[in-house]
């Protein structure tokens, strides 16, 4: 994960990410680049296009209007962004700016069109400011001016256009202030709609000269108690900026959707901008309409549209406030494509809770302080690494170090892969339980000499099986990993009956038979034919019986036959190693054939060689007979389990072939774990 620039803070989060069924994504900075550029302006009742080219080669707009001067001044002054030091040689658009995206865009725009913003600010020193906050959705500052012969204070304000309009009683046209009327308001709305419909972030600007009589020089402006008026301002204009979507996002959203994950946009921004971006990245897909779209198309009022026809919807934060839990659940359940706009931090939390109530596993991506409650509440919180606030990074379980939303897809894939590989590892390990336990059962039931001893069982579980079992965790994804639905945490268990059925009932049994075959071979070749072994246990284990007769009439002392018994244990152990070769190869894949998947897992290949070498060492190393009572095997005894190993491989390949050819059939239902 770190190689793909995902910092995982707690490891279980990756597995949770694999079961994610819903992603609630913040817009700005997550889905978009957060590199605002001023694209349009609206003043004097016209939309002007800004020059967004690098070298100012595009057409410039008419800057002669006095409204523009005022607008530029507000944009420059009501702005906390500054250029970083020592960049005078760089072109303006390439300079680094300390400040947030919108203010940087404004700074660059004004610097390009009007010259040094620094000079402008020095001429109009700031005396007070109220910074932006999510609830009020505006910011204002008060500056000294030298305009004309009025040494009055200038209050400049910028923020969400509708909030600015509410506080404005006048509007500036061609440099002159006029009272606001309905016509103007409608023009404003149209412009706002148009600009917003382009997916741009629109900011409104207004100012007022504070009358000198009420606010003399040296007036102590109190920003906490607000001892000055913030209403009846003069609306100057709108500036709109584009924040283009990140290049990798549409593709990532597409992959998530084909993986069965629902992507919901939750943003504090305007609904129209949100909808435009959503369409741009694929959260609202082509051909899907909201109730408003349908109403507009069929030319009928919204209330007449059948809500079930609209698969997409855009919900405003104010509407969200009035929804009950059931209504919220209804919306979440019946719409596949949802955008929540103008949401407050509390509402983001409510949305996450709503999704979780419906049983979804929710991932939340965000970068700002306002995302942190939702990040904490989510099953997995993903924060942006570069542009994310420290709070969001603290609250999150995973941090995208390069702010790339596409990394979430990687995370989901990795999470699903971990779950799949865990299953494989468990299936592999559980299978060897049957050949380990059946010797003892048969020892008791049929009174044969013990086929597999405790030390050899431990050699399997703690020795030879370790590396192959762990190597399965490094297995590559099977091809369909991102085409499946997310895992249902209630029904899709890690270990299910099908896994047990395969491991214990089918493969394990074949393995046990391989081991028993080796056992009988060793005993028979030493003189004890299988038929004579049944019932021999009491005599065999009797220490005082030192002339026990074998099938040929020879007589054995206790120690002599025990050595043969321990040689049997070693042979059984080696047989388990041999059949586990086949087991690890078939456990590599759950659906694909081994020939499709390939043997690229180097650790697995190492594991195969390592376990064989360890088995050979345990059998042949001098001193093992004293230390562990494991004896050297005749070379032919290594091959006893080969037919069974081969059978395991062939059987499982055929099973997986039937699985692939007959999806949904009986074989898949009963054996696909």
């Amino acid at each position, binding site marked *: 994960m770190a190689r793909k620039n995902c910092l995982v803070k707690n490891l279980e989060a990756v597995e949770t990410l694999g079961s994610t069924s819903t992603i609630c994504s913040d817009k700005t900075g997550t889905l978009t680049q957060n590199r605002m550029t001023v694209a349009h302006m609206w003043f004097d009742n016209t939309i002007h296009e800004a020059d967004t080219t690098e070298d100012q080669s595009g057409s410039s707009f008419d800057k002669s209007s006095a409204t523009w001067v005022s607008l530029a001044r507000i944009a420059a002054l009501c702005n906390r962004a500054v250029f970083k030091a020592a960049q005078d040689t760089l072109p303006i658009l390439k300079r680094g700016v300390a400040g947030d995206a919108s203010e940087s865009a404004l700074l660059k725009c004004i610097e390009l069109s009007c010259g040094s913003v620094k000079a402008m600010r020095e001429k109009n020193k700031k005396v007070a400011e109220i910074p932006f906050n999510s609830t009020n959705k505006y910011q204002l500052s008060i500056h000294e001016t030298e305009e004309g012969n009025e040494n009055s204070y200038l209050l400049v304000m910028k923020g969400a256009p509708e909030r600015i309009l509410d506080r404005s009683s006048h509007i500036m046209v061609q440099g002159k202030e006029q009272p606001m009327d309905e016509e103007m308001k409608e023009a404003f709305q149209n412009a706002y709609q148009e600009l917003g419909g382009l997916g741009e972030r629109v900011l409104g600007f207004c100012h007022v000269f504070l009358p000198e009589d009420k606010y003399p020089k040296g007036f102590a402006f109190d920003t906490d108690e607000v001892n000055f008026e913030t209403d009846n301002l003069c609306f100057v204009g709108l500036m709109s900026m584009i924040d283009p979507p990140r290049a990798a996002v549409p593709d990532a959203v597409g992959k998530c959707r084909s993986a069965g994950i629902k992507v919901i946009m939750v943003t504090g921004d305007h609904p129209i901008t949100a909808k435009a971006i959503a369409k741009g990245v694929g959260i609202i897909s082509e051909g899907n309409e909201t109730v408003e779209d349908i109403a507009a198309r069929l030319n009928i009022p919204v209330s007449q549209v059948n809500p079930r026809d609209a698969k997409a919807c855009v919900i405003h934060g104010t509407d969200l406030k009035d929804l009950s839990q059931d209504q919220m659940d209804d919306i979440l359940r019946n719409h596949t494509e949802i955008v929540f706009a103008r949401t407050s931090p509390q509402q983001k939390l409510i949305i996450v809770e709503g999704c979780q109530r419906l049983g979804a596993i929710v991932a939340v991506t965000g970068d700002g302080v306002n995302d942190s409650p939702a990040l904490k509440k989510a099953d997995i919180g993903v924060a942006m690494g570069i542009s994310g606030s420290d709070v969001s990074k603290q609250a999150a379980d995973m941090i995208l170090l390069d702010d790339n939303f596409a990394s979430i897809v990687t995370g989901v894939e990795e999470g699903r892969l971990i779950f799949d590989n865990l299953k494989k590892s468990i299936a592999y390990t559980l299978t060897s339980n049957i050949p380990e336990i059946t010797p003892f059962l048969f020892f008791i039931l049929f009174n044969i000499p013990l086929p597999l001893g405790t030390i050899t069982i431990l050699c399997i579980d703690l020795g030879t099986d370790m590396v192959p079992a762990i190597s399965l965790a490094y297995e590559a994804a099977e091809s369909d990993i991102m085409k499946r639905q997310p895992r249902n945490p209630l029904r899709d268990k890690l270990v299910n009956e099908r896994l047990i059925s395969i491991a214990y009932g089918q493969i394990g049994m074949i393995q046990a038979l391989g081991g028993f*075959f080796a056992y009988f071979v060793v005993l028979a070749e*030493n003189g004890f*034919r299988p038929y004579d072994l049944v019932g021999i246990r009491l005599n065999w284990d009797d220490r005082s019986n030192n*002339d026990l*007769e074998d099938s040929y009439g*020879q007589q054995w002392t206790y*120690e002599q036959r025990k050595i043969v018994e321990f040689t049997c244990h070693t042979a059984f152990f080696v047989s388990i190693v041999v059949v586990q070769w086949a087991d690890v190869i078939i456990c590599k894949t759950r659906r694909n054939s081994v020939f499709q998947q390939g043997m690229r897992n180097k650790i697995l290949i190492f594991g195969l060689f390592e376990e064989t070498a360890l088995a050979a060492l345990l059998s042949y190393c001098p001193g093992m007979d004293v230390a562990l009572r494991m004896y050297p095997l005749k070379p032919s005894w290594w091959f006893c389990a080969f037919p069974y190993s081969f*059978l395991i491989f062939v059987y499982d390949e055929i099973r997986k072939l039937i699985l692939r050819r007959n999806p949904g059939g009986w074989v898949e239902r009963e054996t696909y774990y």
Partner: protein
Amino acid sequence: MSKDGDNGWKESVWNPRTREFLGRTASSWGLILLFYLVFYIFLAGMFCLTMYVMLQTLDDHKPKWQDRLSTPGMVIRPKADEYYEITYNTQKTESWDMYAQTLDKFLSPYNNTAQVEKNNECKPDEYFKQEDSGDVKNNPKRSCQFNRTILDECSGITDRYYGYQGGQPCIIIKLNRVIGMLPGKDGQAPFVTCGAKKEDTEKIGELQYFPPNGTFNLMYYPYYGKKAQVNYSQPLVAVKFLNITTNEDVNIECRINANNIPTGSERDKWAGRVSFKLRINTI
């Protein structure tokens, strides 16, 4: 609430609505059980096939590997219930009576009359080799007689109590049968020697061996297995303790001496030797 919980638990065992037992309908059970039946029958068949193939490779008369029997074991008769401890009181008949009876039972197949019926008289002091010539098997093979009388005073014929009553007990020693074993190179027959363990050398007294020198005659070897030599009479050596110290534990070890039988491993106390404890109480 708890009633619903009860019903839920019962429902997961038998659901009358969907007719599911433990989550499966009858036909589902039928299919899966049928699958497993066929699967296990196939596996059993494969196992039997591999076993059959393996058994075909085995010789009827001789095992494939005998490396574990390089040093044959030795045992004594009478075999007491205890771990090779013979303890009795000369005064109390019932304490040694069972030993005598055990020896009787053990030696009855060696009666001369029985031996004459079953086995041949062989030329002594040379191996009684009955080779096969290529594919023509020289079966069944004949065995040599081992007559009870060879054991002389320990045969139970002259002394019915095998010396136990008189404080001079007889112990019979047997060398384990190993197919094809030819003990004693160059005509030198293997023989048994008994001695006391370290602390008890004074107590053991004099020993008498039957046959003399405690040898196993070469004519009884090689052993060809119970299928070829049905009536094989395993040779025996008897050792009589003439004046063993009474009322004391005496630890005795009898070994086989042959120039081509390697000393057994330290671990196996019965490979090529046998240790036992003898205690004769007189009061």
